Every structure is written in C-alpha cells, then in structure tokens.
C-alpha cells in the first residue's frame, strides 16, 4: 500500500499542466520585470501615468508603478500573475471532484477502498501543493531578477506577498472545488471559482474609486490580499490567515457535501 494514493495521482499525473502554468508564469515574469528600469522607473513613464485618468490608474493599481516593488505588485502579482494563477487554480479545483464526477470516473474511484472525505482532502492537498509550487516559482524568479532589474524588493516583503498571492489563487481554486463537489458539475465549479476571482478584482477596482463605494473593498479577497501593496510594504498577515482559513473551510464543506450525497446520479 502506498501512502496518499489519490493525492499522488492528482499531483503527479497532472505534471504537464503544472509545468505549463509554471512556464507561463515565468514568461510573464521575464516579460515584465526586466522592463522596469526603462518603463516604470523612468520619469517619462511617471508623466504618462500622471496623464492617465486617475480612475484608471487606481483600477489598474498603477498608482505605485514608479517604484520597483510597486511595479512588481501592480504588473505581476496584481495583474498577469494573478490572472494566470487564478485560472490554473480554478481549473484544477473544478476538475478535482466535479469534473471527475461529470466525466464518470469518480464512480469507479469511490467503488474502491477509499473514503469520500479522503478523496476530497487528498485532491485538495494536490491543489494546494501545485499552487504553492507555482507561487514558489514566481517568488524565486522575482528574487532572481530583483538585482538585475533594479527592483529593490525586500526579501521579507516578497515572501509575504507570495503567501498572499498563493492564498488568493487558492481561494478561487477551493471555491471551484467546493461548488464542484456540491453540484457534481465542473462548469458550476469553474463559474464559482472564476466568480470569486473576477468579482474580487472588480470590487477592488470599483471600490477604490470613491468613498461612496469603499464598502465594496470589504467584499474583495483581492483587496484583502493587496490592499496595502504587500510587495512594497510587507504582508497583512491577518488577511493572509483569512484567505487560507476560508480556503480550508471550503475544502471541509466540499468533503461534507460529497459524503452526504449520491454520486453520478
């Protein structure tokens, strides 16, 4: 008997997908960060940013783009990296239980010597580890480019931002996993996961526009994570704890839901 058989299958059999996303993130990093000295840090760029409508700079988090950490926060952690990580995490989360059930394979797995709770937990662990792996790749590459691209990021702040970055993606992924496990449908999982990611982003962008809609920020996981620009200022650790705790709660909910219902019916 091998330990954690379901985790092993979910983690190792998807190595192509994991590698693909890692390469995508690496490409985004190598595309954006080396450009900082010529774009973000230049006076011309600051003039251009100043010329943009302030609503737009706020929505895109470009208000801090003139500093290395701010630039990294806005372009990588806040935009392209966030997008890629969220898509990867949501697609894995939706496939973990809902997708597996919809394709008819979960039935055969459950007919074997496994518990449903175990299926959910091992697959959630595989999701977690893949997200952590991607976040570690991002963190390492940013640190690698920190000197050459003159970003001036503090290691402590980078690590904190990475924890939030992973936690944010994981929240969307576990939402997808949970809704997939409750409904047995991959599409519903995808919709839920994408909803958490997109609404979080939109609530942040809109909530930053004026005092009247500031309350939207409270509903935005994106804002919880990035409200204080962690790459520049260090992590908001309670926010990080919230993100990870809600993810854990969603996994527990998924396990309870799957335990209690008919599969493949």
């Amino acid at each position, binding site marked *: *008997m*091998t330990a954690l*058989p*379901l985790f*092993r*299958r979910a983690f190792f*059999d998807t190595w*192509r997908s994991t590698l693909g996303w890692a390469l995508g993130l690496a490409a985004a990093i190598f595309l954006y960060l080396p450009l900082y000295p010529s774009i973000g840090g230049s006076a011309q760029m600051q003039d251009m940013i100043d010329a943009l409508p302030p609503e737009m700079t706020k929505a895109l988090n470009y208000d801090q783009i003139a500093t290395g950490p701010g630039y990294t926060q806005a372009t990588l952690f806040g935009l392209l990296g966030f997008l890629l990580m969220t898509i990867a995490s949501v697609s894995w989360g939706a496939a973990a239980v809902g997708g597996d059930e919809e*394709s*008819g*394979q979960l*039935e*055969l*797995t*459950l*007919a*074997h*010597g*496994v*518990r449903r709770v175990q299926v959910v937990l091992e697959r959630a662990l595989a999701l977690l580890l893949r997200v952590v792996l991607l976040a570690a790749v991002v963190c390492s590459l940013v640190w690698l480019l920190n000197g050459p691209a003159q970003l001036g990021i503090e290691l402590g702040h980078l690590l904190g931002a990475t924890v939030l970055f992973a936690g944010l993606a994981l929240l969307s992924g576990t939402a997808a996993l949970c809704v997939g496990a409750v409904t047995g449908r991959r599409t519903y999982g995808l919709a839920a996961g994408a909803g958490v990611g997109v609404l979080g982003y939109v609530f942040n962008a809109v909530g930053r526009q004026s005092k009247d809609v500031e309350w939207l920020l409270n509903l935005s996981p994106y804002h919880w994570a990035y409200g204080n620009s962690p790459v520049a200022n260090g992590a908001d650790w309670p926010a990080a704890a919230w993100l990870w705790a809600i993810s854990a709660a969603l996994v527990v909910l998924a396990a309870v839901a799957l335990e209690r219902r*008919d*599969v*493949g*019916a």
Partner: protein
Amino acid sequence: MAPAISAKSLTKKFGRREVLHGVDFEVEAGSVFGVIGPNGAGKTTTMRCLLDIIRPTSGTIRVLGTDPRAGGPELRRRIGYLPGELFLAGRVTGRTLLAHYEAISGPVPPGRVDQLAERLGLDLTRHTRKLSKGNKQKLGLVQAFMHQPELLVLDEPTSGLDPLVQQEFHAMVREARHRGQTIFLSSHVLSEVQQTADTVAILRDGRIIAVESVSGLREGAVRRVRFTTSGIAAHDAVALLSGVPNIGHVEVLEADGAATLSATIGGDIQPLVRMLASLRLTDLVLEEPDLEEAVLTMYAAPREEAQ
C-alpha cells in the same frame, strides 16, 4: 451459508422519479447471479447502491454481511466493480492506471495483472484514452478481477467485447466461482448470462419480476427438433413423434422420399432420443433451448406470485 448480497424492499427516488420500487433478492455466496432487464430497468441503480455510490431511499441492503453505508473502504476492498459506462481518461498507460487502482483496492497477487491482461489480449503499455471501447472494457475487467475479491459486481461486463474475448470472460467467471467468489452481473439479454449464471433475476421497471435458476429454466425451456428419416412414411413418423411426451408443433416439412419433420419439445429429451434411435436418420438438429423465449412467455403477463 449467509447470502453474499441481500436486498429487501429497496427503493430509490431521484427527486420525484422513483426508479426502484421495492427490489428484493438474495445472492447465495459462491454463486453467479445474473440480473436481466431492459435499459432503464434499474440494474445500474441497484449495483450502485451495493457499492454505496448512491444511497437507497428506503429498504435494507447487506453486502458480505455488512450494510454498504457502514462498511466503508474495508468492505469495498472485498468487492470488484465494473461500472456500466466506463470512463478512463488521462494521459497514463493502462499499467499506470491499474497501479493506481491497485493502491486503492485489496492486495493484488504479483503477476496477476499481466496474467489477466494477457488472457484478455490487452496491451498495458498504451495510453488509456487511446484505447478502443473494447480495450477499455478489458482494462475495467482487469481492475475488477485483479485483487480476487470475494464479490464481483459487473454491470454489463461483455459490452464491447468481441465473441472470443467474451468466451475468455465467461471462463474467468467460472474460475472465480470455482475459487468461491460470488459474481453479480447484469445484462440486457439473457443469452449473455445463461452460459455462466446459476440464477437469473428479471428486473423490469424497478421491480424484480422473477428469480429462476438457469437449470430450472433449461428444464422448462422448449427446444426445437428437426430430423430427416428414410424408409418410413411421413404419416407414420408423425404418429411415432406425437407419441413422445411434451411434444408439440409437429410439422411435416418434406414428405417425398425421405420425410423431414420438425417439432418442439419441452422438458426431458430422453423419450425423444429413444424414439429417434428406432428410425433411420439422415439428419438431426436439436437446438439449444432459447431461455429468453422461455422467460418472455412465462412473464409476458405479470403474475401475482412473481412479485
């Protein structure tokens, strides 16, 4: 001996639609039990209830002496299951996939997987998603049989298999039975299970309408006989044939020169063979009994006691 499976008053509702309306049956340990019924009769639902994939709305089930709801992984390790519709995706080879199922089922004797794959003619080095339907089915059979479970639950096991592989499958079932394993299998036609099953249950519209032993069906079944005889007038042959017990539908097909007659015979064939021995036969065909027809005529009109 305690039954390997017993189901009492099993009902299952999906929303408002009830698909099982009180299914009762017992499967004797060490026997081969076939459930026959058209698609949608409730065979798959019944099987899924046995494995706790879905939960019955009411009624009780005992599988190997345990309620599947409470039996957990320990019980399911003692069962081999082949789902009715088998989906095997992923970019893995058959061998890798089987190693995964091996990790989550009962212990598999060394060399057993290769031996089964060879018997069924399955290439384990190919990627599962590139396999044909028949080859996927073989992979499904290997994962169900490989840990030599006490109970095999096989939903339409021969679907997609070519006739030679079907024969090999029947041999595997007979061997499993010899080893003392219990086999519960389903089919939409009786002819597929009559070779291996000891008992058949007819499931229709969510109810078991009949449980019969295959040998009993065989005895009660009607065979068709046709023979050609020379040196005797056709009407004499008819008279002789009509004297045999349980004979019916006597027809003269040829009366010029050699006489060719056909008839049906139910039950014991010994008197017929004795009569035929007294004739000079040039041709004789005694067909295998059609159990399907026997069952259909028996239950064309549902009888009260068959419920």
